[in-house]
């Protein structure tokens, strides 16, 4: 089976987010970049499914030239090749992103059987790109998946819901968005890293559609205004803690 996994380059933030002077992005002067944990699980799943069922895997991103780093990271754990839809530094809105992905998919001579996305991106969290892609391609879509089984071209997907798991069955090709917990992604091996350097990345520069969900500026939430009350140091503070629990009616 041929699998496409889609990822997005995002900064790896620390305990405090700092914005750029124009407040349109996070200042990444000191930051590295990564992809969402959901997407890491998507990539891992793609590799595992190809290991089990044969075929090949491709990673796709819509992002700036530097996003090649994330494509290599994903290829380092075993994805075979990459498609890079190169953008300028501005983030694209979900419709533009989905359209670029759809256009790229339509150009692939050998069709994909499965499209894996993260449930939502780590940064924007728009919750819609995969669904738009599914509609454009006329494919079924299940989101928030934490378990995938494949047999005879059929997918059985598990979704975690309140009180248990919902099960979906659908036939491929299909669009699946996954959540962290689907699997425990592997670390890339050194040979994997080195192979990733030589794997093919197909670049193209799609036209940018006029954004319809248009970011104006970012701002940080006001501080909680909380003043932490230090109950004490070491085990001697235990009675004070129990006092708090008692106030809350928990003891």
């Amino acid at each position, binding site marked *: 089976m041929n699998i496409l996994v889609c990822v997005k380059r995002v900064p790896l*933030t620390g305990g405090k987010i700092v914005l750029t002077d124009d407040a349109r992005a996070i200042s990444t002067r000191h930051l590295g970049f990564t992809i969402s944990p959901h997407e890491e699980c998507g990539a891992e799943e793609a590799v595992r499914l190809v290991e089990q069922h044969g075929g090949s895997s491709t990673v796709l991103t819509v992002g700036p030239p530097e996003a090649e780093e994330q494509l290599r990271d994903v290829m380092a754990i075993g994805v075979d090749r990459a498609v890079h839809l190169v953008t300028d530094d501005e983030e694209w809105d979900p419709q533009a992103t989905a359209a670029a992905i759809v256009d790229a998919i339509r150009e692939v001579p050998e069709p994909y059987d499965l499209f894996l996305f993260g449930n939502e991106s780590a940064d924007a969290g728009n919750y819609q790109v995969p*669904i738009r892609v599914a509609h454009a391609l006329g494919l079924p879509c299940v989101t928030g998946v934490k378990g995938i089984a494949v047999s005879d071209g059929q997918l059985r997907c598990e979704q975690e819901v309140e009180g248990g798991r919902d099960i979906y069955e659908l036939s491929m090709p299909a669009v699946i968005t996954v959540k962290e917990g689907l699997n425990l992604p592997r670390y890339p091996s050194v040979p994997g890293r080195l192979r990733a350097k030589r794997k093919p990345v197909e670049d193209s520069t799609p036209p940018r559609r006029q954004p319809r*969900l248009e970011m104006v500026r970012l701002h940080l939430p006001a501080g909680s205004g909380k003043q932490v009350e230090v*109950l004490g140091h070491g085990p001697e503070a235990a009675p004070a803690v129990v006092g708090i629990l008692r106030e809350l009616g928990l003891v």
Partner: protein
Amino acid sequence: MVLVLVESLDDELSRQALTLAASLDDAVHAVSGVGEYAPAGWGRSLLEVIEELSPSAVLAPGTDRGNEVLAHVAAMLDLPMAANCVAISPGDPAAVTRIRWGGSLFEDATVHGSPLLLTVAPHAVAAEPVEVAQLRELEAAGGDGMVRVIEHVPASTAGVSLAEADVVVSGGRGVGSAEGFGVIEELADLLRGAVGCSRAVTSAGWRPHTDQVGQTGTKVAPEIYIACGISGATQHLAGCKGAKKLLAINPDGEASILASADYAVIGDLHEIVPAISAEIRKARGA
């Protein structure tokens, strides 16, 4: 008029979405899905209602299902959709404020298109009583490519669910090992709460991902969240900011988690947590 997709009229997050909807227009209509969940099917059904009622805006709670169904509608209408909004001012374009990074950051954005499609971030507004003009039901029609839930498997675990627990005792990298969670489990049991953990812990394989609290794990809303040896990365705080109170137990007197905490105990969790358990037993024994 505005249309709101609700879980039910009593559902807390749905009521929050209704409250925000009411601020846009006096006439609030609601729709609710029936039968087995079928995201695209419900979306199509909602689309029919939209075509019939021509609302100026369609809202849904920013839950998995709310976001999903509305995204299907947006895709079918080729309209923009703003997920997880905390404020809206209608207009053309409409201006919204929505959350990014699981709530660590806000975005002011404009939405070009009508009807306005958006979901409401959980707990962004306090629910108020809203007069709902009409509650309609959505039902998924069958058909090709319409996925639906075919089976529901109830959770096998007998314990308290993390998302629902009144007390969450959570451990981070500072716990040091899988075995180290013994003291955390003990305290959680005593308080009839659930055990949580940070992403560092699941990555290390000390706890299953189902215990992970955070932006990509479970979002919790207990009476008290006891964070033991957790430094407080934004991704983790995104999962526990629904907690009413946060107690941090940390050797570092100014770990970033303390900025979000109500209470703190400074020191080694492996000494402090057992001492708290012992104190609780003492209190109960007395």
